[in-house]
């Protein structure tokens, strides 16, 4: 972290949620639930752990953050704007004609987005390559990758899961945003991942399970990586899809629907609009 003017993690999380709701509403976009479930994780990461300089997005020593679940990009764009990569006003162009702020995380012309994602099962491999390059060059930066639970259906998630421990990439951290709902139903109904933490452990990762909305637990887990020397770390973060807006929580519908009208007002009220400025 290099910027001293950042809000607290709790405040940053609130702002991420508020921006995400407004962006999704304005764009009539999907995936608000996926942005809200990881807001607390992003807030702690960017406000307390990630080493970066928004004035130098290409700074070679920066920590890398990859949003492998690219559909949750409203939250990513929001945290990047709030941490100084680009003006907050630009968030209003999300999904708009001619805007670089696409509906899946896009690096072209968006400072701070490390790689473009959107097709699931790519980000962890990309991050593993960056971690391997960092190791071989004797660098100290870390690579953090946020993957979704649905993304753990992809075989290509498990290829780097096998590779990274073999190559002792203790500079790599995978966070699974385990909100238990994927595109067409609950994870349990669609393709059960349990025992998920055991799977990562069996692949050779140091693993911790946390409540992904408990800021203290997140902080402690992030501070403790690598959990096992010479091993990559996996944080299985138990989260709630749509967290922070009561009527969205644990509802598949809010993987798709955009909050408008009275729904929007309720969402903003619950998130705490008035505390922002």
């Amino acid at each position, binding site marked *: 972290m290099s910027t001293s003017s950042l809000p607290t993690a709790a405040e940053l999380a609130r702002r991420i949620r508020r921006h995400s709701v407004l962006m999704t509403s304005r764009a009539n976009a999907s995936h608000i639930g996926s942005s809200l479930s990881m807001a607390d994780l992003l807030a702690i990461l960017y406000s307390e752990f990630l080493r970066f300089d928004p004035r130098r997005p290409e700074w070679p020593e920066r920590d890398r953050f990859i949003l492998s679940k690219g559909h949750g990009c409203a939250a990513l764009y929001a945290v990047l704007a709030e941490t100084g990569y680009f003006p907050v006003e630009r968030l209003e162009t999300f999904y708009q004609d001619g805007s670089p702020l696409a509906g899946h995380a896009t690096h072209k012309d968006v400072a701070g987005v490390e790689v473009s994602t959107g097709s699931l*099962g790519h980000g962890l491999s990309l991050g593993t390559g960056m971690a391997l*390059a960092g190791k071989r060059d004797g660098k100290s930066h870390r690579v953090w990758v946020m993957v979704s639970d649905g993304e753990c259906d992809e075989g*290509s998630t498990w290829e780097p899961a096998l590779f990274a421990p073999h190559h002792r990439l203790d500079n790599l951290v995978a966070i699974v945003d385990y909100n238990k709902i994927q595109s067409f139903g609950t994870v349990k109904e669609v393709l059960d991942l349990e025992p998920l933490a055991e799977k990562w452990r069996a692949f050779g990762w140091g693993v911790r399970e946390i409540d992904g909305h408990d800021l203290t637990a997140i902080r402690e887990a992030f501070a403790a990586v690598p959990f096992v020397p010479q091993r990559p770390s996996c944080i299985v973060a138990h989260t709630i899809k749509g967290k922070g807006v009561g009527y969205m929580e644990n509802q598949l519908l809010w993987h798709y629907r955009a909050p408008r009208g009275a729904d929007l007002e309720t969402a903003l009220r619950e998130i705490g609009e008035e505390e922002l400025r």
Partner: protein
Amino acid sequence: MRTAFLETLFELAKADERIVFLTGDLGFSVIEPFAQALPKQFVNAGVAEQNMTAIAAGMALSGKIALTYSIANFPTLRCLEHIRNDVCYHEANVKIVAVGGGFAYGALGASHHATEELGVMRMMPGMTVVAPADPIEARLATRAIVAHPGPCYIRLGKAGESNVHEGPIDFQLGRAIQVREGKDVTLISTGGMLKAAVGVARRLAERGVEARVLSMHTLKPLDTEAVLAAARDTGAVFTLEQHSVIGGLGSAVAEVLAEAPDIKVKFKRIGLPSAFSRRVGSQQYLEEQNGLDEAGVLRAVEGVLGS
């Protein structure tokens, strides 16, 4: 061609520590010297081409020049979306290397026949696509793609091909090499089909037909000037490739000719039908079966020229 590639890469990698060489668990008995001498520049990704490709992209985005290596369709079609999204969209400095282009592994079955990948790679935005004709071209092509910033695909043959070029050549990406001058007809080949093209030209000469022969080692960007000049100067153009007639050299040349104003030219794509081989066999056998040996190409050319 494989040996020419590996020797050249080894030489380049010794001088440039940015070069990293990733293999999808292939290269037994040929890659070991590289792996032992330059362990920090070598990665065996295991039998996992998607991961290999994205790791290469991640390393390239960290300043490396990353090469992925496997055989036949494994480094291309098996991991196509990783090439499109992770390599091409990020303009990552990744070089995809396939050994066993065309029917080089003919007896191993259709899974190992790389006969569509040139067309597929051509379609990838920003991808440079190269298929050298012989070991001499393979050496120079290896240097050229490593020096070229951005995504490249190189299709190699196998080990043990003889050189077709008889002397030094001027190899530049995107520039066809004229191997033989002629005024009556042009044979444009890519990859190892140059050998057949030169043989056919010799046979045509015995019948008083002088063929220009172009080695189109780079399919993308295509040397459109050489194609247009061939059409204007000779009035008849044939493309030779060990690849489907859809999407590869024949298609690329057809696109240029079809859009050129005021050019009237006889034209035929000589390649493979869009179908799987129902029988296996040596490369030579499968060439004969598909009309890609000298006799078959000659028949096709004469059929169009009407002699």
